[in-house]
């Protein structure tokens, strides 16, 4: 859970690492998180019209959309789920009768909804590639862009394995979720989490959120959701785990998330080595061309 700069560079000023646990199984797609985020952070409007992609007209995360609720419509076989035995199905019915189910199921149709956000990665590629130091790690272990430093070079945009950061038109700088840095400093929870009516977005200390998520995963697995999965909840994934992680009911790519995101810094040594060898080869070529024949 430790990052390069947190908590070491903060010393006594370091605060516990905080984040979001987004339990998509109880998301109702109300978009209160999107509205609260825009209102509180004064994010410009992003009206794009009607996409036809279910109820999603926000489209994606970007400079003007720091929360994005995804809507997926799926047909699922009613009753028997994914080749489960009749005994398992009966057990599942029992669990459902007991009151445990997701909001999205019924009538052989399910609606997956998930509120996406910046992941505040443990190994954040955006932060590593930022040449100006505009992107930094806060005392809460989150990743924030300093708008008074960013010069809009755009390097973080293709570096992010989740496509979170983007440049704001007419402004030139990149913008993304700050995990409500200013509210954290006032001991308040981020606007989206406070607005979420079903507690699908849970804010808290990361270690505590992870424990909570494990229990919820166990519960859903037991309730006959074999595809229920925790996403970005482990330190040994490609980004060292995220500050904002998710409980999903299907594969990540169904929600527009990469199944195996990797921080590009893992290959940095190889990248610099190749560039170095190529530079030496260029020198050798120049030398050979100039001295390797009649002058």
């Amino acid at each position: 859970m430790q990052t390069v700069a947190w908590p070491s560079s903060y010393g006594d000023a370091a605060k516990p690492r905080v984040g979001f646990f987004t339990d998509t199984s109880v998301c109702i797609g109300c978009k209160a998180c999107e509205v609260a985020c825009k209102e509180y952070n004064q994010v410009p409007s992003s009206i794009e019209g009607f996409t036809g992609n279910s109820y999603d007209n926000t489209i994606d995360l970007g400079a003007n959309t720091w929360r994005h609720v995804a809507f997926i419509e799926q047909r699922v076989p009613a009753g028997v789920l994914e080749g489960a035995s009749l005994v398992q199905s009966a057990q599942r019915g029992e669990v459902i009768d007991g009151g445990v189910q997701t909001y999205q199921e019924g009538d052989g149709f399910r609606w997956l909804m998930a509120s996406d956000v910046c992941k505040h990665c443990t190994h954040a590629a955006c932060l590593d590639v930022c040449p100006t130091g505009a992107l930094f790690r806060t005392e809460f272990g989150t990743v924030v862009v300093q708008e008074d430093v960013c010069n809009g070079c755009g390097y973080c945009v293709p570096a992010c394995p989740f496509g979170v950061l983007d440049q704001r038109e007419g402004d030139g700088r990149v913008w993304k979720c700050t995990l409500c840095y200013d509210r954290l400093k006032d001991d308040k929870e981020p606007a989206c989490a406070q607005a979420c009516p079903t507690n699908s977005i849970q804010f808290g200390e990361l270690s505590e959120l992870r424990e909570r998520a494990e229990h919820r995963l166990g519960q859903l697995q037991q309730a006959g959701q074999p595809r229920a999965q925790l996403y970005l909840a482990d330190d040994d994934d490609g980004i060292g785990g995220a500050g904002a992680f998710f409980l999903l009911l299907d594969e990540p790519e169904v929600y527009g998330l990469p199944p195996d995101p990797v921080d590009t810094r893992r290959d940095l040594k190889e990248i610099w080595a190749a560039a170095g060898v190529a530079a030496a080869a260029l020198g050798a070529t120049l030398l050979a061309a100039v001295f390797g024949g009649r002058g």
Partner: protein
Amino acid sequence: MNVTHHGMGDGASADSRAGAPAGTEIRTYHGQPVIKEPIWTWEIPCYFFTGGLAGASAGLAYMSSLRGNDVLARRAWATALASVAVSPALLTSDLGRPRRVMNMLRMFKVTSPMSVGSWLLSASGASTAIAAAHAWTGSFAGAARVARPAAALLGLPLSTYTAALVTNTAVPVWHGSRRLLPFVFASGAALSAGAAAVAVTPVRHARAARRLALVSAALELGCKELMERRLGDLGEPYKHAASFKFGRLGQALIAGGAGVLYGRGGRSRAAAAVAGAMLCAGALSARWSVFEAGFQSAADPKYVVGPQRDAIRRGERRGASRTEPHISAPQPAVGSPATAPAVVDEQREAAARPATPR
């Protein structure tokens, strides 16, 4: 990869196969991209060219002067100075906030090839300016003793760090070429330096430049071809749309220019100028092909999801998801209070009741 791609509106049909044995289906969110396309504009591929031209020209100039060919050396210094001078203008123009260009030198970060490059370009620009001034006017003799070799040496990484810059991203076609792209850029830099020198130098003083242009033309064509093949399915963007067109145009210009240079470049100044221009245009076009491939690769979710999912299926990587709960204590009763910090409605309360007999 060997996959079918489900684009916009196909989400439901792909999902209807949920429960089918794990196949090679690529599932996407309404066909939306997973990563963002770069926001860089035309200045960046131009800079890939001018940065390489400046770097390799400085090396060519310094070595030519060591060899005693001052005619060639002076022209190569001039080329290096012109291209190293236009480079910061291109880069600044691409910034979202051009007035904050000096923030590039706010810190030095090895994790950011753009930061390293900013310092390289600054140091290279200063030393090239001194070296070129000395070559043409004889001034700055003292400073030039350091500046000339410095410019030549700094020019080498200046020519290849741009490859490190684009490969150090999440864009599959770029990141996947991290071992070979620097060699494509290095040979492109050598090619453009040789070609520019051929175009502006009297024929009888340009032998070394001709050798450089011809050898590096072959290297450039070979390296780019090899890189595209090694990329496998990830390299598909090079076979389509703008990337393909620029790639083919580059090949044609480089092959044609090399032909003219080899056939008549040693005799006719006009032919040498034409060949040099063709080769430079070819090198620029090849960079543009690499640039466009990155956009195409980022825009299509199949290039991002496909290889990641394949690696998980093959068991090489475990991915970022886990269906097995990590619970040290015995499996909690369904609806453990720990999952619901604030019980907010009837459903939650119902969930808190044990549902299975113990």
